[in-house]
């Protein structure tokens, strides 16, 4: 058993298919209880990473550790503590929602009456009680998605691997699902890895991400830290009641301020050391009788970060 600080440790994890590399010596850690985002374009290796971590695929090289168990030695134990929502949902159409959940529950060693309680609570949370005895083949995409989610959660996994988890959910269910994911992470300390193209959703849910392209990890870490590391500066916006020509001179004279732009009553500027620059700038403007309405940081989105990393924009 390794240290329990990290739920997942990838150690040079590599997967090749017929000589073609899908995951290329990936090494990073995911802390316990964290919601971790796995980002990358199509074919980057996200699904293969999920399949490797769930014990479905065998690494060609390297290894990974899940809650102290190594893929190379304890794959069946890893399978029992991991829950997976695969991209294609993979449900049995000729079984009902209840039967699908019962099968997987039993496969993971959950037996009645506990199994019935869990099914009841998951179906109720996902608003599926009324259709529990309907064949899954008759379900809409969104409903199938919900059953697949319930299946991934039926054995209360310690590590949850979700491939595009909200892709077919309506906005209300999507919001509810995100809340539930946060709850799992916060209250049960479940570690969650989300692979998604929905960058706003990842930004909303995840504290840490790994961006992969062509199987390689381009960047990994805390989203805000990555933004700082990538851009190296922060951008701010000062809104004034009235922008006088003197104020422009003051802003441009402050040391550390760069790339100043003016739009209407707003001043945009960039700086590296905001803690030092902002107080001096505000003080100078106030002394010049500027009436400041607000000072805000211009937030870079995860999408900006992603584009920068993948396309260098």
């Amino acid at each position, binding site marked *: 058993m390794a240290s329990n600080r990290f739920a997942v440790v990838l150690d040079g994890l590599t997967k090749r298919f017929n000589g073609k590399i899908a995951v290329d010596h990936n090494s990073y850690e995911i802390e316990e209880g964290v919601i971790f985002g796995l980002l990358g374009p199509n074919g980057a290796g996200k699904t293969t990473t999920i399949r490797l971590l769930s014990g*479905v*695929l065998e690494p060609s090289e390297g290894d990974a550790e899940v809650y102290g168990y190594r893929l190379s030695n304890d794959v069946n134990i890893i*399978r029992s503590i991991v829950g997976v929502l695969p991209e294609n949902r*993979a449900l*049995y159409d*000729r079984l009902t929602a209840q039967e699908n959940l019962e099968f997987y529950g039993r*496969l993971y060693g959950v037996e009645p009456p506990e199994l019935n309680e869990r099914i009841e609570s998951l179906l109720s949370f996902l608003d599926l009680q009324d259709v529990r005895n309907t064949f899954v083949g008759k379900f809409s995409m969104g409903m199938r998605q919900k059953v697949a989610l319930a299946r991934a959660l039926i054995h209360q996994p310690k590590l949850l691997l979700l491939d595009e988890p909200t892709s077919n959910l309506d906005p209300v269910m999507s919001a509810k699902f995100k809340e539930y994911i946060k709850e799992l992470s916060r209250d049960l300390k479940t570690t969650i890895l989300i692979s998604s193209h929905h960058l706003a959703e990842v930004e909303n849910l995840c504290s840490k991400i790994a961006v992969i392209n062509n199987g390689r990890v381009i960047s990994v870490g805390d989203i805000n830290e990555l933004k700082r590391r990538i851009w190296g500066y922060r951008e701010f916006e000062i809104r004034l009641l009235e922008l006088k020509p003197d104020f422009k001179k003051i802003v441009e004279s402050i040391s550390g301020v760069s790339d100043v732009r003016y739009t209407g009553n707003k001043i945009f500027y960039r700086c590296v050391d905001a803690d030092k620059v902002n107080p001096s700038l505000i003080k100078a403007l106030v002394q010049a009788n500027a009436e400041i309405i607000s000072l805000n940081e211009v937030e870079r989105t995860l999408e900006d970060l992603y584009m920068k990393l993948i396309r260098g924009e």
Partner: protein
Amino acid sequence: MRFRVSMIVARKEFKEIVLRSRLILSMIYVLPVVFGVVMPCVLAWISLPMIWAPITGYSIPPLTDNWWLIPPGGQFYIFFINLYAGLLNLVQPLMIPVYIAADSFAGEKERKTLEPVLAAPITDFELLFGKALTSLIPALTVSFLSISLSIIAVNIIGFQVFGFIIYPVVPILLLYIIGVPLMSLLTVFAMVLISSKVNRVREASQVGGVVITPVLILFFTQIFGVVELSMVTVTIYILVLILTVACLMFASLKVFNRRRLIEMI
């Protein structure tokens, strides 16, 4: 190997594939009636005149204790009924698993439902064993039901004429007791191999049709007098079956590998 886990798979597959497939359900209901009662009865009834016909040129091994007391026509009748009823009952343990196993193995690939099962804590062997049980249990149940019905039906007619049980003779009985389970196993393992190469249930069941060949070979070699229906030929046939099943089982275990399966999806 945890039998409990295999049974969980078998129960699910039985519900999904057997109980909810009209084709398989109708086979289960219809085959014992047609192959076990209707066809053997019709054959036994319409062939009765051959008992008194002067048949020569056939060398038929003694199939019962009373063999030499029976006129040549009667001997041929018993041989004929055993052979045909035997063929009808030996086709079923091959036919039923073809459809169930095709749906179970190739169907799972076609419907892309394998990934979560392969991510669950179940070994390849437990999964294979569970799926094999799904095919074997209905096949053996239907086959032995059909055999029992055919024994009753044929002897109702035969006993009145001969005064003893004319069917099954010992070699056929041996084929039923040992050959039927072996033939079902052969089909299941053959279907595992076929399903590893094809991605559609229909293709798998069509290709799977060739597994009926061993029975047809036995049948036609009898008809054309190449080999005789005797304890020796049946024993050789069973030994060949055992060897074939063993080879197919090893090949299936090699092919039924979750890592290979997921790479095919």
